[in-house]
């Protein structure tokens, strides 16, 4: 893992250079490419563990590159783009990218996401039997009901009993929206009355523990005016 090789693809040389240096400071080996075609060439000759990829590039754009890579490899791909619309993110993720970061990005967040993706990628080999009924996996989020344990990209997370129960409920029903009342009644097992604040506070705490950027959560999302859900990834 220390010598993980990362491919940074961006047509802007300064940005590519900056990312290179940021990642090198973390001890990764970095190779740069300035367009999609170059990236594909490098992938053939080098054993790359993760790709940071811009979308708007000459010759071959990021989305097409992602599709080409996905046809042969399942290495993590983090898309880095100035396009901030939800529709752009959804498109990128559906093309096979594992994460989507918008420009201008927070350098520390980029590093954190790279680390998280790498951890997941490296550990995937160990998890041969993830489909056990006691184990739930959503993206890098892993919950074991037998061990009563939650890990994010392999890192264990310390949750309180209520937090764990909420997360378990939402992860078991990934993609389904729960209202605060429903969550309260299932987790606290009491009649719900004016519980929005209580539930929301717990949601926020869980987010702070499992999300890299709690302000832009990847897993645990608030559906404004309706409820809460774990994104189905």
């Amino acid at each position, binding site marked *: 893992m220390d010598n993980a090789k990362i491919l940074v693809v961006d047509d*802007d040389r*300064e*940005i590519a250079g*900056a*990312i290179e*240096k*940021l990642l090198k*400071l973390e001890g990764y080996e970095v190779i740069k490419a300035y367009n999609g075609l170059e990236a594909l060439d490098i992938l053939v000759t080098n054993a790359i563990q993760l790709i940071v990829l811009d979308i*708007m590039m000459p010759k071959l754009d990021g989305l097409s590159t992602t599709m080409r890579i996905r046809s042969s490899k399942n290495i993590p791909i983090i898309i880095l783009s*100035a396009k*901030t*619309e*939800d*529709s752009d993110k959804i498109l990128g993720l559906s093309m096979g990218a594992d994460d989507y970061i918008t*420009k*201008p*990005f*927070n*350098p*520390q967040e980029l590093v954190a996401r790279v680390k998280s993706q790498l951890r997941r990628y490296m550990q995937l080999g160990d998890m041969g039997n993830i489909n056990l009924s006691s184990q739930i996996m959503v993206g890098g989020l892993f919950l074991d009901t037998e061990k009563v344990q939650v890990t994010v990209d392999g890192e264990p997370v310390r949750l309180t009993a209520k937090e764990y129960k909420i997360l378990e409920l939402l992860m078991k029903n990934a993609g389904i929206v729960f*209202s*605060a009342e429903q969550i309260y009644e299932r987790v606290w097992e009491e009649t719900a009355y004016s519980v*929005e*604040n209580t539930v*929301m*506070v717990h949601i*926020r705490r869980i987010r702070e523990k499992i999300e890299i950027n709690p302000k832009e959560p990847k897993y645990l999302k*608030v*559906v*404004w*005016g*309706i*409820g809460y859900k774990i994104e189905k990834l």
Partner: protein
Amino acid sequence: MAIKLKNFSRSTGTKFTAFLLTVIFITAAFEQLVILSYRSINLDLLLVNEYQTSDYFINHDVNNALNDIILLFENPSIEANNKNYYYSITDGERTYFNATVEKIKQSDTPLFLYENGEWIIGEDADYGTPYVYYPENYKIYLTFTKEFMVERQQILDDSKSFMIPSIIFISICTLLAFIFIVYLIVVTGKKSADEEIHLNRFDSIYTDFQLLFGLFAVGIWFSFIRDYYYINYTNRVTAEQVFHMVMLGTVTAIISILLGIILLSLVRKIKAARFLKQSLIYTSCYKISDFVKSFFDDRRYAHYPLTKAMQRRQNLFILTSAGMVFFAMLFFAAESPLFILPPILEFIMIYWYQKENKIAFDKINQGLQESLDEQMKSERMKVALVTNVSHDLKTPLTSIISYVELLSKEELSETAKDYVNILADKSERLKHIVSDLFDLAKSTSGNMPVDFESIDLKKLLEQTLADMEDDITKSGLTVKTKLPDNPIRIYSDGKKLYRVFQNIIDNTLKYSLTGTRVYVETEESQGNVNVIIKNTASYEMDFTPEEVLQRFNRGDKARTTEGSGLGLSIAESFTGVCGGSFKVDIDGDLFKVTIGFRTY
């Protein structure tokens, strides 16, 4: 001196006095005239000194006396009773007399002699001859008694002594009134300050109405004179006549005031060249002719440059069609076979009208399509522009942020570290501004995708407040909520509305007076819900709600270093995109945002 005179002559007081005097003089002259008429004084007598030289003497006294004499002579049965004259009449056979011829001839009163069909009066007589003639064989002597002549002379003298001063009085009054009227005509409308003609409110009345009113007033005056004027044949003025004089005098004064006002108004209008223009006849004629003209000189179609030809054609079509119908009916009524002609012409007209209109419609459609295409194109360009500029701004910003981060990891002096921290702060802020700016640009240009779904506004507010709990606690403010127990169902985009409320509450947290409360309330009524967020500002809000919503305007005009200043603008624009209404009220230190939605 001249200026002083001008000021005096044009002053309102002078004018008013002159006007009043005019009215007084006219009324006085009129009253005097009425008195004269009551005295039944014959104006003929005014020009003679001797009664016997007057026409009245011949026409009245002499004539009457002759009639009496002839009557007596030809009808002997009638008793003679007049003692005013002496006469002698004979036809050669009969003679009637009340005095001998000698006595008559000796009298020093005027003598009238009729002989051989002719009137003979003394050679140097100063009186006229009668104008009646009798058979030639008649011979008549006639003269009047001394007493009668003296009495008549006395009456004449009395009348003259009364009448001459009266007439002089009337003349002077009339002359003075005339002078004042001329003066008023000259100065009316002028002020001492300038040489302009000043019209007053009364002058805005149509000229025709003024003239009609004047005529009406004159009519009333005449009717009063007719009703209250009569002659009584005594020399005394009766009490009834005094009453009538007062009556007529009052009416005359009022009527002359009215006529004076109208006259001066008309004069002012003439001076200002508005006499005709200010009349109803002229105005209506002008409007009608203008309306008709407007059809010919394109003014009627000025606002419709694209359909000008069509509208002109349409009017022509309607007009000629009406004409055709008229002629068809005329010919039909006259049982003329010509009645078939107008319908045929009408068909030709319809064909022409349709054909020309089709061309015009095609052109309009084409033009409209082109303009729509153009608009679409420019809309697309706008979106592309926002996207491109967004990319062009974000790319260098990404480099800046990344290298600032790298720089901060280097071994740096303390000062350099401070600088790097400032750079980090500012680039972070720039990032927010750019992001806000593009959110705003997208939402205002209508290119923001919106996911409408059924949401609970109450829940949304609770979630937002819970989400911002840390910020609220940090600010030291208290948020007081007043939300209903039941859900408030609205149809909107929850994620964007979260942005709206987040921005507003963020704003209140930034600009509220420490220790005060922020109120978040909802009001439901008739299918609508209003979310009201109120706070007390920590500074004097010397701006209007419009200003605070203008992009880049900040609550405090002295810009601080946090935020982009776009929060409220984004909130407003997003609310609009989400189908709600957004209103800001500022009342003293109270800052209030009201957001309205339709519930269902």
